């Protein structure tokens, strides 16, 4: 027989132990580059 299921278990943080700081930094860098390029092209368009 298997173990009996635990009922009324307290809330468990399923992200515990997962470190996404590197991913956040990576997404931030890509986003920053996209924003700089977008505004660069737009300002070039407006200035010409």
């Amino acid at each position, binding site marked *: 027989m298997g173990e009996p299921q635990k009922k009324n278990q307290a809330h468990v943080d399923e992200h515990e132990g997962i470190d996404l*700081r590197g991913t*956040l930094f990576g*997404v931030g860098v890509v*986003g920053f580059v996209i924003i700089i390029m977008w505004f660069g092209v*737009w300002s070039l*368009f407006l200035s*010409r």
Partner: protein
Amino acid sequence: MNMHKYEKIWIFFGSATLLVFLTLVGISAFYMGNKPPSCAVTLDPETVREHALFKEPGLKEIGDNEYQLTIVASAFDYDVGNPEKVIEIPKGAKVHVSSTTTDVIHGFEIAGTNVNMMLEPGYISTYTNTFKNAGTYTLVCNEYCGVGHHLMSATIEVVE
């Protein structure tokens, strides 16, 4: 749905950026009047020279600091209304550019400005541009059109 705190941050960041970009594109198009080149008007490519717009190509003043520029492209030449192939435009003038081709597809790019169109037989390509900066600009064909493609050019002089 249980999401990681950092996932919430970059979803918010991405959505906000998209919203800002779309808002600016909307302002640029509807408030500032920036539009892409149009080629909605058609004509018979064999009778271009009989068309009212292209009988006498060149620059014509149509209003207060407002001009109509018509140019006929053909292999391998831009007919700008004078043999020197030089057009003088006052700085700050609003210019409605209309052009077409009598033979094959040509490009129409005034390098250093936002004027960049494709000329297709049977269509009139139009674009309105305000020349804000004085200087000499080159009109070039940027669609390969044949052995003399590199010879297709004209000069736009924006003067004070």
